[in-house]
């Protein structure tokens, strides 16, 4: 059971999310409608995880994202899951680049994923456990962004698949299941990926962040 603070300005969606979370056995300690209340609610209740929308009142711009970054700067290891209407990679990279690696889970998910309830709950748990999860659609776009000059082109298609799944925060075992290969071959692929991209084969969160940092090119 997770104690969740939820920030979402659309009333219908907020109520739906509260119902979804409650039915799935989590406790919504606060459900608020704007970024200022989100900060107040988190400060007051120290939740296990924060779920926030990107676009929030008062400015209806990226207040939710900014509030999330502010909260992570203040509360060590506070997991944050950002829900977004936009595939735009700028938001994902903003979230990742303004945040130092390895401090609590971080997620950027398209809003429509909440419809896939069990998957959404898995993601929520992963982020709460400290992993980094980026929406597959966003990862796909980030991968497509790479042009000839990038070392990424040296990857084989299978290695790209592994990298994409890695960026979603999956572990080797799950990746192996998804791709219906052995875990050993996933280990081999990821070794190749790190070698080709000149990355330290560090584990978990740092691994994902390094991959994403590399994917998006220069930090914004």
């Amino acid at each position: 059971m997770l104690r969740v603070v939820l920030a979402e300005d659309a009333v219908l969606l907020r109520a739906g999310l509260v119902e979804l979370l409650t039915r799935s056995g989590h406790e919504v300690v606060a459900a608020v409608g704007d970024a200022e209340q989100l900060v107040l609610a988190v400060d007051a209740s120290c939740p296990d995880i924060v779920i926030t929308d990107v676009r929030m009142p008062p400015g209806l711009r990226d207040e939710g994202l900014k509030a999330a970054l502010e909260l992570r700067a203040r509360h060590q290891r506070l997991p944050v899951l950002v829900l977004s209407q936009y595939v735009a990679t700028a938001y994902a990279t903003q979230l990742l680049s303004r945040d130092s690696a390895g401090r609590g889970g971080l997620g950027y998910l398209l809003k429509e994923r909440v419809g896939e309830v069990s998957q959404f709950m898995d993601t929520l748990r992963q982020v709460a456990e400290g992993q980094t999860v980026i929406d597959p659609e966003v990862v796909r776009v980030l991968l497509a962004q790479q042009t000839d000059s990038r070392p990424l082109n040296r990857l084989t298609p299978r290695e790209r698949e592994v990298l994409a799944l890695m960026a979603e925060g999956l572990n080797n075992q799950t990746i192996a299941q998804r791709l219906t290969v052995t875990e050993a071959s996933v280990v081999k692929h990821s070794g190749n990926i790190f070698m080709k991209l000149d990355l330290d084969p560090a584990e978990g969160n740092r691994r994902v962040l390094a991959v994403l940092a590399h994917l998006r090119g220069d930090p914004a």
Partner: protein
Amino acid sequence: MAEGPEGERGVLDWRAPRPPLPTERSVAVWEAMRQRPTRFLFSSWPLRCWAHLFSGMLFGLVVLLGLVLMVSAGVLLSVVGVGVLLLAAAAMAGVPVAAVERRRLRLVEPAPLQNPHGPTLTTGGMSWMRSRLAERATWRELGYTAALTVVFTWTGFGVTALLAFSATITVSPLIVWLLAPETVMIIPGRAVPHPLAALPFSAGGVLGLAVCAYLAGLLTGAQVKLADLLLTPRADRSQRRVIELTRSRARLADAFEAERRRIERDLHDGAQQQLIALSMTLGLAQMELKDGNPAVAELITRGRAEARRAQDQLRDLVRGIHPQVLTDHGLAAAVAEVALRNPLPVTVDIDLPRRLPGAVETTAYFTVTEALANAAKHSGASRATVVGRLESERLVLTVTDDGRGGADPDAGTGLSGLADRMAILRGRLLVSSPVGGPTQLRVEVPCSA
């Protein structure tokens, strides 16, 4: 003014509208005359006005003489044909007269008067004449010349005479003293026996000088007013309408932009959230149904897929109306996102030191979107490049593809609509697309406002 495409073929060039014309001027002489009388009378103003009136009188007489000669010679010789030319020259006499007058007015007017004539491109005498005769300014100058020769020359003459008389009787005691002991008659029939007896005349002379100063000031001011009306560029009715139309067009574009944002917000807050809520409800239903009827589960899965497709469509639609990332992260980020979705590989190199005005960002963004879409659809190009820089407070943005060229900017409505929006921002849009390629679209928009 937005004129049609001009210049080399394949180049669209919507130029910026002219800046609004200056408003009515205040006459410096009249301003000075509103001061205390002592201050005005002991300033340089009376002398300058007198100099202006006097020189105007001489000049007016010369012009009048010249005109009379030209017109009479022209009428006499019109049977031969040369006379017609002389008459035409007389009709244009206003042009040099006005040139002299604009300079002469600097005696009494600190702000220079602007030349109303447009530049003439050709050098031939006949074509110069033709282009001048076609200008309204030429005829207004002729009208001014008439006013100068008929009104200002003679009123100037009157004031000069009064001035001379006043000056003379001011120094009357001196004259009496010089001519004594003979009796001096300053006014016929009234003998003045000695210098002191002439003092009242001096007083009258001084009063006359003051009257002259004010008269000259009034006349000079009137001449300045008239010159301002007839010798300077004039916002005539059609020009004023152009200015008003330009403004109303800008207001319309702003309203249009506001409406786009409202629609985007409504879709975001309404339909999009509803669809997400729907798929969430379907997801919950599926969860509750775990071991239930497989046919129902199948229907729910289908419903979710449909909701998902509707969401995708709606997201693309919203992005086409106004992308949120443009508002939040600016032009470079928004163009990078467009480049990702473009079927052609696109290299984006936009390096701007700061965020640009909203209208500039929006227009530039949609221009790039349109250009990239065109490149992907029609050009046969294998790749495209977008480069953006801020050069001396102007956004200069180029979209280049390596396609076969030959694009006709007049063909599509997309680009001309964007060029219209560009014109509102006083920017321009240039398309260069020689047959065989490459096609380059160049946007230049001032960003200082």
